[in-house]
């Protein structure tokens, strides 16, 4: 990881942490950038439908349509224009932030390549949808932008036709231009919606919408912005004069200053390099050189319970007809192309319990790199090597941090691909072997590298999801620390847990609220 990437990752962590404190993790807008962009897109589409009904697609009527809305005494016109324009701007901004965050987190490689690649055309489609909308107002900004875009397009050696000649004089333009632009302006968002559908196809339990509190507040913010800072048209488009200084929408019209600065050809080259560069990102080598081996189903131990199907965050597990003579009707099957090798399916498997007899236990679904038997052996070995009155076992998620730093004479650390790879029975097993307390440490809450790990761990331990932690489990000896890369916090969680089990004199708490989640 380069210094720049590390700095940016730290900035992202800082932003995530700050937003977590202000909004709480589940409602952190920094984690819902894609969903918020979608919300803005829907707002733009809905407000656009109303605006279209009020729009006159003619040279003489286009500009007046904008004026009518902004001068509407009821203020509804201003609200409509503001929601439409600011919604589009916010959509673009949120999309870029979403892209930047996914790049920083390396979410373009592995099983995410499909979502990544299908997201790239969205940038172009959104941009086209936005910039054509600005032309429809047919003010000075529109004539500047449409001419500059035509000049940019005709720099491509595809056709000798001079698009910009269409905007030389007022006489060269007719009403059909506005019909054409309206067609593009409506068509692009429809394509965006279709492309978004494809974009999330390989993600299970996708969150299309942001949490309600974020939705309400975001819409209120945009409405307030629309009323306080109304969107206003400039003067009517004039081919005979240009404004020396012009107000432009930088979210969509950034292209024009760039072309003036670099030339149309270089800007095309830049756009091509950027697009191609983004498309080639999945080919970058992974941060760690650990080979990702897909989960493997052992039909002899698979009873077809479908829990792995329900928990897989990428839809890599499906149920198929049995390949053996078992009485169970179906068995799990892993699509290795979709498998992120997170091991969440192992954590969901009822046969992945360490209490089973025999040394060579095999789970119905296994991670070949970390079989459940090997995990049990490692736990046994590390626990037996611990000294001290209060032994602590830390199950740490590899994606969050290197928790080995927490290991000491009384603390054993076991590393998992994801915290949710751990079946709850392992917690009891660790305590059964003599651990005084067990800590599960992983990515920040709602920030699981594999999307759903922290959620499944929480639900399993709270008894809301199979496989559940048994009601009789000593929950006050269990601590969850969604610490991310914050090792100080993880260390403090170990200290807190040790202190709690050290001072525990009464019987074990038998209510699930006793699990300490931070």
């Amino acid at each position: 990881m380069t210094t720049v990437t590390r700095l940016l990752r730290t900035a992202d962590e800082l932003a995530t942490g700050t937003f977590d404190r202000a909004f709480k993790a589940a409602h952190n807008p920094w984690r819902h950038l894609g969903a918020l962009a979608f919300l803005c897109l829907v707002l733009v589409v809905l407000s656009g439908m109303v605006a279209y009904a009020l729009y006159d697609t003619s040279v003489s009527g286009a500009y007046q349509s904008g004026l009518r809305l902004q001068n509407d005494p009821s203020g509804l016109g201003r609200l409509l224009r503001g929601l439409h324009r600011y919604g589009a701007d916010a959509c673009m901004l949120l999309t870029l932030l979403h892209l930047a965050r996914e790049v920083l987190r390396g979410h373009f490689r592995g099983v995410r390549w499909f979502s990544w690649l299908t997201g790239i055309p969205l940038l172009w489609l959104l941009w086209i949808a936005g910039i054509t909308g600005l032309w429809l107002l047919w003010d000075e900004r529109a004539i500047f932008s449409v001419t500059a875009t035509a000049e940019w397009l005709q720099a491509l050696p595809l056709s000798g036709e001079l698009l910009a000649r269409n905007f030389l004089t007022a006489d060269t333009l007719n009403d059909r231009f506005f019909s054409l632009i309206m067609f593009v302006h409506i068509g692009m968002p429809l394509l965006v919606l279709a492309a978004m559908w494809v974009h999330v196809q390989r993600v299970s339990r996708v969150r299309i919408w942001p949490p309600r509190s974020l939705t309400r507040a975001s819409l209120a913010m945009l409405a307030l912005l629309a009323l306080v800072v109304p969107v206003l048209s400039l003067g009517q488009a004039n081919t005979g004069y240009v404004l020396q200084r012009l107000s432009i929408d930088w979210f969509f019209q950034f292209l024009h200053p760039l072309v003036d600065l670099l030339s149309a050809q270089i800007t095309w080259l830049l756009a091509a390099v950027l697009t191609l560069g983004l498309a080639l990102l999945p080919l970058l080598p992974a941060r760690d050189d650990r080979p990702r081996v897909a989960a493997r189903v052992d039909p002899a131990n698979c009873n077809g319970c479908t829990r792995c199907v329900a928990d897989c965050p990428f839809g890599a597990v499906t149920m198929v007809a049995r390949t053996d003579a078992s009485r169970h009707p179906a068995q799990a099957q892993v699509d290795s192309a979709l498998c992120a090798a997170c091991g969440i399916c192992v954590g969901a498997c009822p046969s992945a319990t360490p209490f089973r007899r025999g040394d060579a236990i095999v789970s119905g679904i296994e991670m070949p790199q970390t079989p459940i038997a090997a995990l049990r052996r490692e736990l046994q070995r590390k626990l037996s090597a611990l000294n001290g009155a209060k032994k602590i076992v830390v199950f740490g998620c590899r994606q969050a941090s290197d928790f080995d730093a927490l290991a000491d004479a009384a603390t054993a650390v076991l590393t998992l691909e994801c915290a949710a790879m751990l079946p709850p029975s392992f917690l009891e097993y660790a305590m059964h072997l003599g651990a005084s307390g067990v800590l599960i440490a992983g990515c920040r809450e709602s920030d699981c590298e594999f999307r759903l790990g922290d959620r499944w761990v929480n639900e399993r331990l709270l008894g809301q999801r199979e496989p559940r932690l048994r009601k009789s489990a000593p929950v006050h000896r269990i601590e969850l620390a969604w610490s991310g890369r914050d090792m100080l916090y993880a260390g403090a969680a170990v200290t807190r847990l040790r202190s709690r089990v050290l001072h525990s004199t009464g019987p074990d708490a038998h209510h699930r609220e006793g699990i300490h989640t931070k």
Partner: protein
Amino acid sequence: MSSPLPAPLRYLLQALAYAAFAAVVGYFSSFPLYRQLGDQEAVLKLSFSHSGQLKFACRERSAQELAKVEPNMRNKMDCPRERAAVLVELDMDGKPLYRVNTAPLGLRMDGAATVYRRLAIPAGAHQFSARLADGPDGVINYSRSVNVNLTPGQVLIIDFLTGSGGFVFTHS
């Protein structure tokens, strides 16, 4: 990671976050203003689409030539479609401002020659001289000079329309 904040402080931070986002959206939606032209500058747009003269004259095919082709293709006249490049020179106040020699469009070089050029020029009174050569010999066969007083921001369009006698200078 730190301990949770008190609710009022959380709400205040949330409000600040929304306000900051709204400020970014609201500001960059219209600002900063983009300077596309200097305060004392005007714009000149030279643009036309004009077909140059045919590069070669028609000639009559010989009997031997006709015999070599299929009967349905025995056209007596051979008229090459290729057109001459169009040369344009534009002077401002007696000094060369722009010069271009544009090849015809099309794979067979039989289309129109097109020019589009936008230039920022100082506002004020200027004399413009435009010359065009569209024949195979490259001899100037169209020219026109005009005096124009351009105010800052004003656009002067120079087009070429054969039907209008050549160069057309338009400004509002």
